[in-house]
């Protein structure tokens, strides 16, 4: 069974499900004869509750830090609040009833008042009032605190968890919190973030799940009950990956991409949109090695304006704060159809009318992108590269258009920065002329996915060919070698931005070849860094 709610903290937890044992708190309304004795009972219980809260404050301070502990100090103040105290005492005296009933009623009234407020934070405080009231009632009735009905770590399910309940829990027994109620601002949510465990709210779990196997996917807010073997395996793998990532992040963040013998290499990230920049920074990449500009065209119903493009490029350049951002110009074709381009259907789009071939014939579309790119270059460190190059004449033509664009900008008094120009090496033809190409550009970026498909004559989209597809084929490795050597001879630096760049079984091979830069998906940056730091090229 799968239940979807809202995630308050990401991560994966796998384990047995257990429902939190709340103590029974049924409060009865009982008439009392001696109301003043009942008021005294309340006052004594209130003091005991405050002593307990002071103890919880100390416990929380040690376990989860001051920010999380503060709630218990606030609870003590709430218990001393005159409105609260007067309300309780007034109910006891006016109705001649027991303290338990007076406290529970007052708690309900005040928590309803907060629950009705138009502010999420304040609505969250309704739980605090309930919590302190329950505590006093417990003291009055001598009830014991609830807990976890298990001796092994579990995914804890609860209707809702009050701060005093979560703090009393044995944290070593909790893999994840799952509640029916609660808010993303609740203490449970804050606690989950502090403990770095996944937590979900709004999950309406059935009551007969005690002891069953469960999976919490904190990334998409899902609880899976009684998962099948396959799902379980999938999540075990995901969990291991997450743990590995977390470990790497901690260890490798801020470290250099340097081999044991001191060779440094640039490690950048590939992105497909402005929103991916956060991932790039989180994973500590040194720059962006491939920014696919297609998203601007694919997400639009007409040619994206210069202004829209400029804004996107500028945002990324500024967010990367002086780190290199390599943007690839439009790479669409019949396989990535965009209606307004009106491209004819082709039998073999991979080898068809696409990328730079379109740009060199639809100059205005190309120029709009180039103007946006050069304008954005004023706001950061932008490099531009061109896809699907097969000949030197294409590069010369591109450079002429670039010069025109720069002149137009200068004439209009629009500022632009220094922009490195590079080409994608993704056709066998480009590899064979790298010596000549190197004289025309500042850098090469090897697109191993297309290079492999064109070199091995294997259509990437055809699953029937999977058995023939060998990404480590010696032909590919020799081509990379040749590209690096010719690039360096002509003064161009050489990077790899295809999937092969993240293949850590080849990292050493690439470094021995002299590859200057690897660009990989953000989530792979740290594992590649880890590989680099364990390589010794002197051996």
């Amino acid at each position, binding site marked *: 069974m799968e239940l979807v709610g809202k995630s308050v903290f990401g991560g994966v937890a796998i384990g047995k499900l257990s429902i939190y044992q709340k103590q029974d708190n049924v409060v009865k309304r009982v008439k009392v004869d001696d109301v003043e004795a009942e008021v005294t009972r309340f006052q004594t219980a209130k003091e005991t509750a405050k002593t307990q809260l002071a103890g919880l404050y100390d416990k929380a301070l040690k376990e989860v830090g001051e920010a999380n502990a503060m709630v218990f100090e*606030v609870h003590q*103040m709430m218990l001393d609040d*005159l409105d609260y105290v007067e309300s309780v005492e007034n109910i006891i005296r006016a109705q001649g009833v027991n303290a338990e009933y007076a406290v529970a009623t007052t708690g309900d009234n005040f928590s309803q008042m907060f629950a009705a407020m138009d*502010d999420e934070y304040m609505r969250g*405080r309704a739980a605090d009032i309930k919590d302190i009231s329950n505590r006093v009632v417990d003291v009055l009735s001598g009830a014991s605190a609830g807990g976890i009905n298990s001796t092994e770590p579990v995914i804890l399910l609860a209707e809702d968890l009050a701060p005093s309940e979560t703090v009393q829990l044995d944290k070593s027994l909790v893999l994840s919190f799952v509640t029916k109620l609660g808010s993303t601002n609740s203490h449970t949510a804050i606690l989950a973030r502090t403990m770095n465990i996944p937590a979900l709210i709004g999950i309406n779990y059935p009551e007969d799940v005690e002891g069953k196997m469960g999976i919490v996917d904190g990334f998409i807010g899902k609880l899976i009950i009684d998962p099948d073997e396959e799902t379980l395996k999938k999540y075990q793998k995901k969990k291991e990956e997450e743990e590995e990532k977390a470990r790497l992040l901690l260890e490798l963040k801020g470290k250099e991409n340097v081999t044991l013998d001191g060779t440094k290499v640039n490690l950048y990230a590939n992105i497909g949109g402005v929103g991916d920049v956060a991932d790039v920074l989180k994973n500590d990449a040194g720059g962006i090695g491939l920014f696919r500009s297609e998203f601007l065209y694919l997400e639009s119903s007409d040619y994206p304006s210069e202004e829209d493009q400029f804004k996107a490029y500028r945002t990324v350049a500024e967010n990367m704060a002086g780190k290199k951002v390599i943007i690839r110009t439009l790479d669409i074709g019949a396989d990535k159809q965009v209606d307004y381009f009106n491209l004819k259907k082709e039998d073999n789009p991979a080898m068809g009318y696409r990328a730079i071939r379109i740009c060199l014939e639809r100059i205005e579309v190309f120029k709009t992108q180039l103007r946006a790119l050069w304008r954005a270059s004023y706001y950061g460190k932008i490099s531009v590269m061109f896809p699907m190059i097969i000949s030197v004449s294409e590069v010369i033509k591109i450079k002429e258009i670039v010069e025109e664009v720069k002149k137009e900008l200068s004439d209009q008094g629009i500022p632009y920065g220094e922009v490195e120009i590079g080409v994608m090496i993704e056709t066998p033809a480009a590899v064979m002329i790298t010596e000549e190409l190197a004289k025309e550009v500042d850098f090469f970026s090897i697109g191993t996915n297309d290079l492999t498909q064109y070199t091995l004559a294997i259509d990437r989209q055809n699953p029937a060919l999977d058995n023939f597809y060998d990404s480590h084929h010696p032909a590919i490795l020799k081509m990379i070698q040749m590209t690096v050597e010719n690039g360096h001879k002509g003064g161009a630096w050489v990077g790899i931005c295809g999937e092969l760049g993240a293949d850590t079984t080849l990292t050493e091979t690439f470094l021995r070849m002299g590859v200057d830069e690897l660009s990989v998906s953000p989530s792979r940056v740290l594992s590649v860094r880890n590989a680099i730091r364990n390589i010794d090229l002197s051996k």
Partner: protein
Amino acid sequence: MTEFTYTITDPQGVHARPAGIFVKEAASFPCNITVGKDGKDVDAKRILGVMSLGVKQGEEIVVKCDGDQEAEAAEKLEAFLKENL
């Protein structure tokens, strides 16, 4: 009576913890003290009342002190608000 107005700058508004400290400060003076928003006044010495105003960032509150040590109370509370809220 001494009174002053203050505009909340804390992005979370008057949340529980500073409200608690404010109330404690207020309770240490003998004079009557109220906090008001949009014409609704509550006793500044009662945390639930102060929180029930639900004061958010950018909203203005009026603090009125009336009685013994009113000037001193106003000065102390204004300083606290500037520092914490």
